[in-house]
């Protein structure tokens, strides 16, 4: 057939008209995607360890302090608000559920263990991602597209040392501290709704906490907070630092997409890693 003959002259013809290709295409697509993810995972791991390695260089301390202020101290207000209302609603819902079983005396334990083991680390990480993580991606991304990162190279200032390391270290320090604040204020929120508004005895509430919360619960919560800190800081810095490598867009649009991507990826990874870490800690 003339058409077939003509097509065979074309360099892509053989690939284009290969019979049964529609059957293999989904596998090729999945394979390509998996290879892509593995590549990203590998690059991000190298990215993280390079940044951590470069933490122990001179003149890093002031930069870490500045980032602790930005990621940690500046996020305190939003953490206070979210934790207070999370504790209050948790106290309210749990009170009405427990009262059906005559177990309202366990309200303090339920609220505090929920917060310390799960809600505290997870919600703190998500709130910091939304507030500081997105800003980190946007800031580094803009520095990348406006050649400020290249300028650091030309001035012989290592961008990893100057931009990435302080942020990752600051996140590792800030996340557990803010998680502790979240846990404490959340428990007070539970007290307000359970004791002050619904009339539970204050002694019962606090005794329930004292007798049910172990040191392991606290350390497990902080371990999660550190894991989330590493994930959030790495994902957000990585997305900003490699914004110029994006294939879907360029310039300001790429920064916007990288920011969205950083927040979504961080939130998903927080929840996935939460399950994995919880499983490991419960073994």
């Amino acid at each position, binding site marked *: 057939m003339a058409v077939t003959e003509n097509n065979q002259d074309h360099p892509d013809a053989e690939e284009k008209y290969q019979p049964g290709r529609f059957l293999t295409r989904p596998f090729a697509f999945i394979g390509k995607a998996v290879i892509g993810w593995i590549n990203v995972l590998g690059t991000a791991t190298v990215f993280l360890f390079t940044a951590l390695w470069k933490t122990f260089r001179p*003149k890093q301390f002031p930069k870490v302090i500045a980032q602790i202020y930005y990621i940690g101290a500046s996020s305190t207000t939003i953490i206070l608000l979210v934790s207070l209302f999370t504790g209050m609603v948790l106290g309210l819902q749990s009170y009405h559920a427990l009262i059906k079983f005559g177990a309202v005396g366990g309200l303090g334990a339920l609220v505090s263990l929920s917060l310390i083991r799960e809600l505290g680390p997870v919600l703190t990480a998500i709130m910091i991602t939304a507030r500081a993580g997105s800003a980190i991606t946007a*800031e580094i991304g803009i*520095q990348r597209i*406006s*050649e*400020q990162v*290249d*300028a650091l*190279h*030309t*001035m*012989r*200032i290592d961008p990893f040392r*100057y931009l990435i390391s302080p942020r990752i270290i600051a996140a590792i320090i800030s996340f557990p501290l803010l998680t502790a604040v979240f846990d404490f204020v959340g428990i007070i929120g539970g007290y307000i709704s359970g004791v002050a508004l619904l009339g539970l005895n204050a002694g019962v509430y606090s005794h329930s906490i004292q007798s049910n919360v172990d040191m392991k619960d606290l350390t497990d919560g902080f371990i999660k907070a550190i894991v989330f800190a590493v994930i959030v800081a790495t994902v957000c810095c990585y997305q900003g630092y490699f914004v110029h490598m994006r294939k879907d867009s360029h310039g300001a649009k790429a920064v916007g997409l990288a920011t969205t991507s950083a927040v979504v990826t961080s939130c998903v990874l927080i929840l996935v890693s939460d399950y994995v870490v919880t499983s490991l800690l419960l073994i």
Partner: protein
Amino acid sequence: MNAIPLIEFKNITKRFGSQTVLQNVNLQIYEGQVTTIIGLSGSGKSVLLKHIIGLLKPDEGTILFRGKPMAEMKKSEMAASLAQISYMFQGNALFDSLNIYDNIALPLMETTNLKRAEITRRVMARIEQTELTEATYKFPSELSGGMQKRAALARALITDPRIVLFDEPTTGQDPVRKNAILSMIAQYQRKFNFTAIMVSHEIPDVYFISNRILALYDKTIVFQGTPEELGNFDHPFNDEVIHSLEGLQKELTGLYSQRKFKILNHGQLKRGETGEDYCIVVFTLSALDAVISGLGHDAAQEIIHAMGLYIDKHFGAIGGFSTRRKSNEFVTVLPFSNIVEADSIMNDFVRDFQEQGISDIRKESQKLASSDKCVDFAIRAGIAEGQPTDEMDSIIDLAKSQQKEIGRLQCAAKE
């Protein structure tokens, strides 16, 4: 040139995906000179420059630094080589969250163990040299384009580099500021004696400050030599690049390029017959360096620009054509005038210039003067008559030898 080049490219090829940007590029850059790489936008000039500083690596070929391949250097050797190089980006790449002081201080703060007082002393000295005192604690977004360029230049020079790379330093500037920035680069190059490597398409302005020109065309270097040699270079690059950029220059300033000027002169003289005289007038702005140091680069370039426009307006109307021959020198050909007629035309010019021209130039320069210093300078002119058979350069030299003062701007300082 027999000396070992400071930087040498040997058969450099660079590809981005399937697109080849540089193909078998060979070039030499020598120490202590101003070397300018010219070419059309998107021709790979910045890519070439980024290979020198190590921001990009070639796919093929070798880059030699003082005769040694960079790829074979040890890490410490490479770091020592790159430490001699500074880079001024096309878009300045100033840190927008840092003020000008912090931007300039950044390389010293991060890469040296100098005490804060010493860093402050050095930074303030550079700020003063680049006329940025008023902008010291302002952020880049609060400054004009020209001031941002100066801040980027101050940052590039703060580590006292031996080599400075300028990636299109005049982008986005008006003609006066473009020349002011080029003049500033030339002045600092003389003052600090660094090797300047510049990417630009400001033709012919870059000729005034460049020792060597490299022409990038069709992915490779097609010319290396002096600006004068480029005038005699017979290649499609001349038609497609030089002519188009020179045409733009004529639109902006009214003055012809030196090459176009020579062609016009040749054409006019060919039409004339032996024995038919023509005249050349040479104008010189005296003490340009004193004007620059007293009033700043912007004001000095505004004076030169206004002077060029005034000359073109006056002599262009009677069939004359002019060019800027040096940074402070203009040459005008009066093709249909003998010395008597030229003298009469010149007398009219001098009268108009003293009545109106000087005050116009003073007004323009005052707008851009950076200080209240009082700077006097003179404008000199000389006429010489020649015949079609004479060498133009010899007539120009004769005109220069007969120069006398036609105007003086007294205390052209900021009011």
